């Protein structure tokens, strides 16, 4: 299933999404290598979710092209290699944790045994083993997010597109999430992650900073820091944002 290892996991050229006359994503050029953790950052409405939805084929692109897991974005043949975690919880509230995980395992063609094995492992990791047979409707918001992450991971995809996976998750668990991400990255998995947390941004191999649909800065953490001349990432983004606005005015 894996395409050539030299190829990037994600490549976009001029990727654009317009809703009517509003441009949500503006000619985005991305190159994300295999085995990389790439953080997409940016204020609310920057276009992060829209980008991710285009990458997993849920939104048609208006312009430009995108290659994901060796296929054009939206090609069903790539779906098996992608694990998508939407920003909203998107679980069956009327099913138990186990039933949700089993469903998302089965749709990827896993056998009952395989999903059960993965489930045990993943529930251990998100610390929800005792909640296995509880209806999702009865879980707290953070717990739902953890189950949702589990559902995205169940088929061990090569590429993970995670839209704010750590929202509402307590700090201790967030740390263990990132340990896990780093661990599976070591096994060649590619992870694209959106976040508003700077400590998480710092753990990414590279970050892309989006604003008004455009990628206004990209690079490793030190690169971003030196680009902005600020040590603090938050300050760095402020400077970069102002600079891009200034550039627009000029």
């Amino acid at each position: 299933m894996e395409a050539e290892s030299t190829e990037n996991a994600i490549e976009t050229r001029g990727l654009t999404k317009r809703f009517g006359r509003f441009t949500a994503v503006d000619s985005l050029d991305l190159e994300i290598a295999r085995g990389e953790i790439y953080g997409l950052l940016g204020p609310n409405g920057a276009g992060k979710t829209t980008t991710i939805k285009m990458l997993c084929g849920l939104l048609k692109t208006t312009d430009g092209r995108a290659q994901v897991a060796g296929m054009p974005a939206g090609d069903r043949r790539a779906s098996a290699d992608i694990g998508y975690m939407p920003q909203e919880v998107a679980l069956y509230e009327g099913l138990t944790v186990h039933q949700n995980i089993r469903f998302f395992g089965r749709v990827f063609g896993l056998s009952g045994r395989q999903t059960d094995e993965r489930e045990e492992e993943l529930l251990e990791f998100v610390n929800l083993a005792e909640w296995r047979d509880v209806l999702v409707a009865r879980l707290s918001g953070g717990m739902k997010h953890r189950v949702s992450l589990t559902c995205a991971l169940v088929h061990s995809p090569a590429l993970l597109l995670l839209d704010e996976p750590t929202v509402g998750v307590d700090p201790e668990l967030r740390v263990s999430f990132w340990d896990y991400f780093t661990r599976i990255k070591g096994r060649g998995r590619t992870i694209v992650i959106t976040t508003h947390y700077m400590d998480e941004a710092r753990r990414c191999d590279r970050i892309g900073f989006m604003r008004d649909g455009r990628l206004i800065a990209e690079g490793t953490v030190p690169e971003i820091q030196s680009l902005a001349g600020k040590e603090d990432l938050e300050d760095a983004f402020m400077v970069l944002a102002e600079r891009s606005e200034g550039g627009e005015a000029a």
Partner: protein
Amino acid sequence: MRSPRFLTVTSRVFKELRNDRRTLALIVIAPVFAMFVFGLAFSGEVHDVPLIVVNQDQGAAPVPGAAIVSISGKIIANLDTKTLSISTESDPAKARSDIEDGDAYGALVFPEGFTASVVSEPSGATTSIELLLDKSNINVATAITQAVNEALLETMDQAGEKPPVTVDMVAVFGQNAKFMDFFVPGIMAFTVYLITTLLTLITFVGERTSGTLQRMLATTLSERDIVMGYAVTFSLIGMGQALLLLIIAILVFDISVVGNVLLAFLVIALLAVVSQAMGILLSSTARREAQAIQVLPFVVLPAFLLSGIFWPIEAIPSWLRPLSYLVPPTYAVDASRAVMLKGWGVSEIWIDIVALLAMAAFFLTLAVFSLKTRKD
């Protein structure tokens, strides 16, 4: 051997239903409730209609010197007391005012000297009785008229008089058929149609609003798998409902079924497939669960009124009739009725089956298409 992927959707929807007692109750209880309510209310039989009898007849001797007889009395005795609830009154004017006040639906007035004139009239001449009726309620008025006519015929029969012409009824189909026999296939089709459409509509609006539909579409499941998965679920549920209704109809209402019940179930399952595809299609018009309710009248009313559940298509004005052929239950009602009452087989109901298949193909295609075009 891997099972087809759409069955994962089927099994998931079943699990959701199993976890949801309310919906489960809707599936099981609603059809049974509908059958009892409609079955008892619309049974077509009229009971205990208040009728006033005013008998001014004194009776007469058939031949001079013989004992006095009262033909009016005999007729009154022959009135069907199940249909009618009879009270007597001596003043015709009072009887009339009772009807005007709504205390009675009719009054049967025998004039003075009724028996005498019947006995003495030469044959061929007629004597009349007066029947005052509240005809604002056609069903009741018809029931009274029929009961009075039957009493007259029976009295004549007892007197050895024969009416000049009689009609012999021969039941080609439906020997001893009761209203329920006619009604059960209709209510079967209607409840399956209604509940399936509603349930898919609500479930699917849920899939859309919760984001699970998008999530499914980001997996290896295709739009077709999703629609197929739902179709299998709801055709099975539809058959289950039909089976339940049939069992209760046989046990409680003692209906008689002459045809192949399996064929009737197949027709109902086809209807369920059409209905669930409509439900998915309709869900694309609703962004929130509450909006789904707005399409309800358009789902319920045409099917209720035009599909021939309560009265035959032939009773629908001809200009409206083409609409009947646009509502899916019409074909299922017609086919399951023909199978269950007349014992017809595929060779007789194939038109209905083809119509349902065509509708299924049409709506399934549209449903798949509606999922695809959401990615604007």
